[in-house]
């Protein structure tokens, strides 16, 4: 039970605690100085007295292609073995939480949607759920089901992107094309619904921005029809392939205790066999009304994390097909005039409606004072939003608990003692999205 109090069981402290300047200095100065810099900051085991055997400090990134954006990792290398390491982040920091304090609640989703750009709808969802919790607004059933449908499609597109990049990182370059191609099918549907392929600003406080377009069922059915065959192809290309298995099995192992201690969530936690999925364990939206399985691994290695994501696509397809059958009729956003502008037809005949419309979009609506924390299961783990309101039309504080940011802490523990080639596989399997890490 009290696993959090259990220290992380690793042979040595895997985190390289070194300043960014020191890491940079080690990289630019010549070799002798580099080795002294490394031994200054790192209490290297004294067994290696020979200078040639001393650990070397290298910086991987921030422009390395397999670091998924601008992640830099200061690594201590003993030959080809990774010892301690430290992820250095912040290259994409644009102060989005500060920006959020200067946007109204209606403008908020435009900002948060840009954090995790591979699964933007989840960011919008968690922000809107937090706002609605403070407002106490009831959301019509159709809006809830549309949100669930769109989020599950987004989970599929996000995992397809993972399969593409993970394949490419490990040398299955063909996967890059296949993954992006299937993802495009889903993005095309998003474009027809929201108008944009990414950064949709579709889920808004009070519901969604627009109803599903005519013929949306046919589009979704098309996606559901073509994907199973493609997933079978991925299985053939990667899952059963001996090279793929050699590269991923037993690489970057983490236990359930370690994962919980490091606050890891999502596929990283589920790969250890811990069946923790907020959709099942703490249901939000209407996940308690659909059937799906929580995919778990057994060994906590890179292969498990790959297999979990591949099979989560299949589970999401099950949820999407149930959304097709169960989609209720009715309004797609709340009728609460405090949050939702009056219908277009009313504006033509009523001056008050026009003023009301204008006020909602310029000044914004006021949210009762208070604070709340809401969490959803994003493709990368628990995505949370801590929102503080002072009763005004703009939030006092918007904090997004980004799963990639927290999961990145496990990286040194996953990479410790592995080969540098496996480090690439490990980074890829954590699937960090730097927009979300740096915010």
């Amino acid at each position, binding site marked *: 039970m009290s696993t959090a109090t259990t220290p992380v069981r690793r042979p040595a402290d895997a985190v390289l605690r070194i300043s960014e300047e020191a890491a940079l200095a080690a990289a630019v100065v010549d070799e002798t100085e580099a080795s002294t810099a490394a031994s200054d900051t790192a209490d290297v085991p004294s067994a290696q007295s020979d200078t040639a055997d001393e650990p070397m400090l290298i910086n991987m990134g921030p422009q390395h292609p397999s670091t998924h954006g601008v992640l830099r990792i200061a690594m201590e290398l003993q030959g080809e073995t990774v010892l301690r390491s430290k992820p250095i982040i912040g290259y994409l920091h644009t102060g989005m939480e500060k920006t959020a304090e200067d946007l109204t609640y209606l403008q908020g989703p435009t900002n948060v949607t840009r954090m995790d750009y591979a699964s933007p709808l989840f960011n919008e969802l968690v922000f809107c759920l937090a706002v609605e919790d403070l407002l106490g607004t009831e959301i019509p059933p159709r809006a809830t089901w549309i949100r669930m449908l769109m989020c599950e499609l987004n989970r599929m597109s996000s995992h397809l992107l993972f399969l593409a990049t993970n394949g490419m990182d490990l040398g299955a370059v063909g996967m890059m094309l296949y993954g992006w191609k299937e993802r495009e099918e889903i993005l095309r549907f998003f474009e027809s619904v929201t108008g944009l392929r990414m950064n949709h600003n579709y889920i808004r406080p009070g519901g969604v921005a627009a109803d599903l377009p005519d013929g949306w069922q046919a589009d979704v059915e098309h996606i559901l029809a073509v994907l199973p065959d493609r997933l079978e192809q991925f299985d053939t290309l990667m899952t059963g392939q001996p090279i793929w298995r050699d590269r991923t099995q037993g690489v970057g192992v983490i236990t359930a205790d370690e994962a919980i201690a490091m606050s890891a969530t999502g596929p990283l936690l589920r790969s250890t066999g811990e069946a923790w999925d907020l959709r099942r364990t703490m249901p939000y939206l209407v996940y308690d009304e659909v059937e799906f399985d929580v995919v778990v691994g057994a060994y906590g290695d890179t292969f498990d994390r790959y297999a979990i994501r591949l099979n989560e696509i299949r589970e999401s397809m099950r949820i999407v097909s149930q959304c097709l059958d169960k989609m209720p009729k009715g309004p797609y956003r709340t009728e609460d005039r405090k949050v939702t502008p009056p219908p277009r037809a009313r504006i033509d005949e009523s001056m008050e409606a026009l003023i009301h419309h204008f006020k909602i979009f310029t000044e914004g609506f006021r949210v009762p004072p208070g604070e709340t924390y809401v969490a959803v299961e994003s493709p990368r783990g628990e995505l949370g939003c801590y929102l503080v309101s*002072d009763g005004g039309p703009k939030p006092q504080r918007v904090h997004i608990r980004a799963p990639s940011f927290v999961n990145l802490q496990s990286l040194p523990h996953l990479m410790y003692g592995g080969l540098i080639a496996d480090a690439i596989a490990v980074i890829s399997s954590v699937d960090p999205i730097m927009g979300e890490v740096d915010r």
Partner: protein
Amino acid sequence: MADAAAETDDAAPEGEASDQPMMFGVPCTDERGQTVLYPTREEYPDVLALAAADGFELCVDLCAVDALTNRSRVVPAGVEPERFEVVVNLLDMRGRRRLRIRTQVPADDPQVPSAVSLYPGTEAPEREAADLFGISFSDHPDPSRILMPPDWVGHPLRKDYAIGAIPVQFKAVEGR
């Protein structure tokens, strides 16, 4: 989560003036179904340890809040409101409940004991709070900036950190 609020700790001091609900010996409120605790800085490590022993095994999130311009903040009776708050969200995976801990941190001495030894997963969030709010976490193993450049001056998420305070430098174009 509601039953967590009802649960009061035996160590609660006797003869409390109000009927303020207590949990782990500190004031506790129920915010729309979410349990919130309000320890002082001194009580904070003990409350965390009690929570960890009570099954809150995963520290989901740690962030800071600057209440400089927030005039409608409500804290329960007996809690001295300060400018900063360190907000910790804990999760009990077996009991499926959440707990939020709001620690008040004064502006003139923004210092809080670090939770890294108990919850190793708070290392990066604490660095983030230190970086963006200037709150120092004592005994933190790596108290360096995480999001801003190492030589950055100021803490951007503070309310008195002006937006656009960085002068933009324009270069003169030759031949104009």
